[in-house]
């Protein structure tokens, strides 16, 4: 039955952790998708969602560390995690090369996340059979 065939997903997260539930819902969805045999083409962080890729988040030890959980998931499943460069630069999320380019005092991008342009999102929409957005609630 075609309706239940395996899909290739692009997930787009636009809500920040510890502000919205979006990264949490997206991770639980992503785990279930992989468990069902689907594939994830990529995960794209946009707008406030880029904060998920911070290497400096330090929530209380009895709360889930969403950035680390996401990073582990991406590594374990070899899924690319991409933070939009325009969203990231405004919000203070930078890698080593942006640090040098903008002469910033540090970098704070958590591996394996990378920073790239909106073209990565466009490619995701073209390459995958399903694009699911995880926005901030309210």
């Amino acid at each position: 039955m075609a309706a239940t065939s395996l899909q290739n997903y692009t997930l787009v997260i636009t809500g920040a952790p510890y502000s919205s539930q979006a990264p949490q819902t997206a991770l639980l969805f992503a785990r279930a998708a992989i468990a069902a045999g689907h594939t994830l083409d990529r995960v794209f962080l946009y707008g406030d969602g880029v904060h998920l890729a911070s290497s400096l988040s330090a929530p209380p030890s009895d709360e889930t560390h969403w950035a680390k959980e996401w990073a582990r998931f991406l590594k374990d499943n070899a899924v690319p995690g991409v933070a939009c460069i325009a969203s990231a630069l405004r919000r203070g999320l930078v890698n080593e090369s942006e640090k040098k380019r903008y002469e910033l005092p540090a970098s704070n991008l958590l591996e394996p996340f990378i920073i790239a342009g909106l073209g990565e999102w466009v490619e995701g929409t073209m390459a995958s059979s399903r694009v699911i957005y995880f926005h901030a609630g309210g």
Partner: protein
Amino acid sequence: MMPINTLHILNKAPDHPRTAQCKHALRPGDALLLTENAVLALSVAGGHDDPAIPVYALEPDAVARGLGRSGTETTLVDFSAMVNLTAQAQNVISW
């Protein structure tokens, strides 16, 4: 399960303006999945307008908000079933 034309995923509370917009956009053949704060619709009397549209609610979000019992009109689903819904639907809209 029935084939789904468009799956509408709503994660906003019942008083959010996007909730009314979402309900207005539902068409026969569509399905509605309530996640996060949207599961609060389960507690609102008379919140379900159109019996022709199947309504699902994410069970982890419902029980987190003390709303574990499913009404007759709403089916509680886990993340695995949520994935199935998105795979079956021709289109998915996240409100």
